[in-house]
């Protein structure tokens, strides 16, 4: 499945990033790497681009560029899951809150 097929509110994990040259490099530089969790926050009023939430920040991406990214869908979770997950992991390790 590709990233451009997801709808707002859905979560996924990236499996592979295709594409060439500058685009691919840019996608990965911004943090869209295999293994990354991505949350689709919303879609623009005119249908394109979309806002993704990953690594703690929001990124806009055009659907045609998102089509280069192969993903696996993750079960729907609350939007803070990406943050809360880390908080949970940290608490488990006994880190300072």
């Amino acid at each position, binding site marked *: 499945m590709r990233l451009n097929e997801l709808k707002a509110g859905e979560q996924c994990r990236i499996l592979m*990033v295709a594409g060439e*040259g*500058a*685009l*691919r*490099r*840019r*996608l*990965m*530089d*911004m*943090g869209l*790497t*295999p*293994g*990354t969790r991505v949350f689709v926050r*919303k*879609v*623009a*009023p*005119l*249908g*394109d*681009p979309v*806002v993704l939430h990953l*690594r*703690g*920040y*929001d*990124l*806009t*991406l*055009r659907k045609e*560029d998102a089509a280069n990214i192969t993903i696996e869908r993750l079960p729907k979770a609350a939007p*803070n899951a990406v*943050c809360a997950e*880390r*908080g949970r*992991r*940290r608490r488990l*390790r006994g*880190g*300072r*809150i």
Partner: protein
Amino acid sequence: MKLLFALAGNQNSGKTTLFNQLTGSSQHVGNFPGVTVEKKEGTVRKHKDITVVDLPGIYSLSPYSPEELVSRSFIVDEHPDAIINIVDATNLERNLYLTLQLIELRVPMVVALNMMDEVRANEGFIDTKKMEKELGVPVVPISASKNEGIGELICVAADIAENKKQPTRLDFCSGEVHKAIHAVSHLVEDKALEQGFSARFAATKLIEGDPLLEKRLNLSESQSDILGHFVDEMEKALGTDREAALADMRYSYIEKLVLKAVVKPQQSREQLRSLRIDSVLTHRVFAIPVFLCIMFAIFWLTFGSLGALLSDAFESGIESLIGLIDSGLKSLKVSGWMNSLIVDGILAGVGSVLSFLPVILLLFFFLSILEDTGYMARVAFVMDKLLRKVGLSGRSFVPMLIGFGCSVPAIMATRTLPSERDRKMTIVLAPFMSCSAKLPIYAVFTAAFFSSGQAVVMITLYVLGIVVAILSGLLLKKTVFKGNSMPFLMELPAYRFPSPKSVMLHMWDKAKGFVRRAFTVIFVATIAIWFLQSFSWSFDMVEDSSKSILASIGSLIAPVFAPLGFGDWRASTALVTGFTAKEAVVSTLSVLTGGDVSGLQAIFTPLAAFAFLCFTLLYMPCVAAFAASKRELGSMKAAIAAMAYQTGVAWIIAFIAYQGGTVLGIL
């Protein structure tokens, strides 16, 4: 001791705010050599021996964009004594991606951890000591907007610079990537040192597949082969390709570091607030209407109420000044032509351009606020789909929109566009948005020829401008500006209060540029036109402009406009004066036709009048816009080419209008 620092970091990391705090008003803006990438430089307050160069906001050191290349070249070739890497503490992971690459350059570096005030307010905690240990560079927590920690930052930076303290940690990698990087480092060590790169940086980039570095290092054939071999081995062992391998390595390291050093108990208040604001501002239904309201308010304030007030006050101020100088000159019995040169030429010309200044200040005041709060990013996001069709991105929307007010600030606003290609194309297309100075022309002509359908004609003209811009965009996309536009990957930063200092500095910077252009390029142009208008070929001053050089030039080029229906010398002369300011078209025609409607009706038929309006809508803008284009496009040649294109398009459209109308028997 004289020191040079480079300030590097992501966009939206507070870099500009930090730079402003460091340098204050000592900063000046220029260009990096050879590219139209802005370069800001200044001396640190209270440390006049330290110069800081603000590198463009970048996310990586890839070879794919002029901003990244310029930053790389600057650090490698200009040998700054230290790098200050500003990092947004509320967005650590992505910011550290650049940090790791900067460390590879082996230049003394300090990480300025910005926005610590927000981290603290959200009950978060960042273990800077642990970060220092893991990264091998000093980490100084700061808050640029609150002016905290800046003094310490400068001290640390000066210390590492003077004592040449390079980053102490070399390896962020493990396993296969580690093997490959070390192997390649040894391989290319001497070639790298020859070129002034650290072996590590060269190795990492070569493994990533950086074509520019490969060329610059000039590896021998056997070296290239061995390099290829190492890369293949690594790719096979990892099961991914070279670029992904390195990106993955860096982010894995960063993830581990962040887990160890950062405590973030909840989603920050700023992020939650931004989400709430965005639920309205990027709402599926309300986003565009809200945007239109905001733009309408800005236009109304700038070109209407407040702006008009300030403009008029400014203009009458200038006029009284001119009046004073005029009577002063007369009492000094200065000769007639000198008086005219100074008063009617220089002062009137430059004065009329300077009267734009309040509009420019107001407009850029509002635009800075929109940009600094983060709202512009949302506008670009919402409008992107529309502009894609023309080969531009959402970022071009606001400059184009401003063009409806005045082309000069529209062209100046294109500087925020990240892609040079987009910037150039927007500069060429923005003048097709009918600027407000052309309104008097439309008003006079529609009143004289289309009194029953004035509004219809005006709206037609505005729409025509937009249509021509779209068609031109499509044409240029396939020809002059071929090639892919940059991928539209844009961060949506949390909404923040704009720093008043930054807004003022930004306004001041734009105003300075505009005034400087007024007294240089525009100065020369208005003197030239004054001369042509006031003198006859025998170099006597003339009262009757129909005897001036300008008039004969007008007569000379008049035949060019014959197929458009207005081959009269008065029409072409008026068009030439339109170069100084569009309002001049009306005033010149009025002078040349004896000041009333019947004079116009003698020269134009209704169809010819319409063709004339189409021409004035589209042809090259005024000299102030020309000067701005020259500055933003980077060369006189490019600016002239743009003007030529616009005038050519104007001619063609007017031709179609007139000939088409004649054939179809309209009007």
